[in-house]
């Protein structure tokens, strides 16, 4: 077993355990912190996959900005200890069996290799995934989607302000 494989397995264990922790913790704040851990491990995977720019963006955008927003809303609403109401008795077993079916289906497709899976190659062109190459690709081939993204963010910002504006009736 190579060192890279060992690193992969340890990180996979952390990622899956933190995802499950997010799912089952009673306190919403613990869930948010487990999710931050999960995002951080995925960022390490991005580094292993030669995507340093995406890894840093993952830490700063996901684990930083988005999760701070989540924590802020959880604390603002004071809903960190919302009690679990169970009104449909068969919901939980049904959900778990559906998830198991999804997992088996996807695993079957993956193991059966029904799809185009690239061959393993270890050598890469120099500077693959560097910020310079991401920028070049973004502004040469994906300029229009990049500009549309700015409109999307503007609309999201205006939408959030309009939705939470406290109107006096």
């Amino acid at each position, binding site marked *: 077993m190579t060192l*890279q494989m060992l690193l992969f397995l340890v990180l996979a264990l952390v990622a*899956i355990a933190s*995802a*499950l922790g997010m*799912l089952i913790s009673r306190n*919403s704040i613990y*869930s948010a912190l487990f*999710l931050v851990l*999960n995002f951080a491990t*995925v960022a390490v*995977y991005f580094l292993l*996959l*030669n*995507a340093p*720019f*995406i890894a840093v*963006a*993952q830490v700063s*955008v*996901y684990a930083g900005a*988005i999760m701070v*927003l*989540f924590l802020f*809303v959880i604390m603002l*609403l004071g*809903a960190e200890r*919302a009690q*679990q*109401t169970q*009104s449909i008795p068969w*919901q*939980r077993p049904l*959900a778990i069996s559906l*998830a198991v079916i*999804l*997992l088996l289906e996807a*695993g079957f497709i*993956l193991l059966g290799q029904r799809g185009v*899976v*690239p*061959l*393993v*190659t*270890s050598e*890469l*062109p120099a500077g*693959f*995934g560097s910020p310079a*190459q*991401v920028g070049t690709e*973004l502004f040469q081939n994906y300029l229009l*989607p990049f500009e549309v*993204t700015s409109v*999307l*963010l503007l609309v*999201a910002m205006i*939408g*959030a302000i309009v*939705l*939470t504006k406290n109107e006096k009736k």
Partner: protein
Amino acid sequence: MVSINFYLGLAIILFTIGALGVLIRRNSIIVFMSVELMLNAANLAFVAFARYWQTMTGQIFVFFIMTVAAAEVAIGLALIVTIFRSKDSIDVDQMNSLKG
């Protein structure tokens, strides 16, 4: 060099946990976090494919997914705050009417 199948398998597991969270939890903030987890699993698959095909397109796509996720979180949390104001609860079972 770890085979791409391991990365895809991990992405599948994380996606399934996210889907399970959407189905099982009633707290709408947790449901929302599970959606983020599913997006993140898709990102992992994209970056793995980008690495193994040696093309930047997958990484660019992840960049756009992150932008859309940020916009989605801003709007979604604003909606949750608004719903909490009118219904005093963020339980998804309470959200059964369109009229506030």
